[in-house]
């Protein structure tokens, strides 16, 4: 973490560019804001994983409880139907939908291990405040997939 700032260039506008050595190019902000990452307390990485098996046009409710204070950093997932899934994320402590009240398609919401969908800024969940995720299969046939919430969980 300590060398992340060496790879980031702060513009006069306050935005950051990040030298992504793995891609060999200077990209506009792609990872969460490095200054925000530096403010995270010591902790451990955590992947919360959910298997999705949904009949056509049905909804599945998931409950995510990290136990400790956690910061959502990225969302990954996949599904096997072209029409796909959609989801909303509700923070039970703050009583709000994290990304707004409108459901978002997985294409616009999740990434993969190679191209994770990083949140533009880490989203903090208080300890023992469950996150409710409502996933809907939009397709007219049954579908399955996996949803993965990558986060940083506060340590001891």
């Amino acid at each position, binding site marked *: 973490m300590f060398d992340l700032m060496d790879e980031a260039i702060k513009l006069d506008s306050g935005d950051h560019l990040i030298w992504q050595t793995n891609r060999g190019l200077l990209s506009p902000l792609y990872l969460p804001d490095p200054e925000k990452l530096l403010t995270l307390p010591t902790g451990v*990485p955590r992947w919360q994983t959910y298997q999705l098996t949904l009949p056509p046009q049905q909804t599945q409710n998931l409950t995510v409880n990290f136990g400790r204070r956690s910061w959502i950093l990225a969302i990954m997932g996949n599904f096997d139907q072209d029409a796909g899934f959609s989801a909303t994320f509700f923070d039970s402590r703050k009583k709000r939908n994290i990304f707004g009240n409108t459901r978002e398609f997985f294409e616009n919401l999740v990434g993969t291990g*190679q191209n994770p969908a990083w949140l533009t800024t880490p989203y903090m969940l208080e300890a023992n405040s469950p996150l409710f995720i409502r996933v809907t299969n939009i397709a007219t046939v049954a579908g399955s997939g996996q949803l993965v919430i990558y986060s940083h969980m506060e340590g001891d």
Partner: protein
Amino acid sequence: MKKHEMKCTNCNSTGSMQTQQGQVFPCGQCQGTGAVNRPEVGPQDYVFEYTIPAGATQVQVPALTILSYDFLLKWLVAASATLSDQVMLTDNTGYQWMNTPVQLANWAGSGQLPFPLQPNLLLKKNTTIAITVYGAPGHSGEIALKGINLADVPAALTTN
């Protein structure tokens, strides 16, 4: 010795470990050979190869121990013809990195597009990592934890 560590009968280290579920992993320091190859400062990949045996749906990959230096884990990569295989990581503190197994496609990248672990994770010297892979019989692949062996760890990072 930490709660989940066990003594290796070959190299006499504490590189073996047992998970909360009772799974016993062989020594991460010598991989059961009795010989320990200590890495140098600089780039370091800890590589786990797996093949799921016939008649099985999971395999415990031999554990690996972070030797000689603290290790800053920066990238996760995996190669397999079946990236739907799922992984579960455990370390010698007993911490499981995920609640249920994660598909390789959603957990790791590749050499061309690695998954950048943010924030980077400092694994202290003598940390042992154990991986269990779930998939169909005959599936095989390789998982690598890519990072840097650190000679001098900034004080701010030593509390992880």
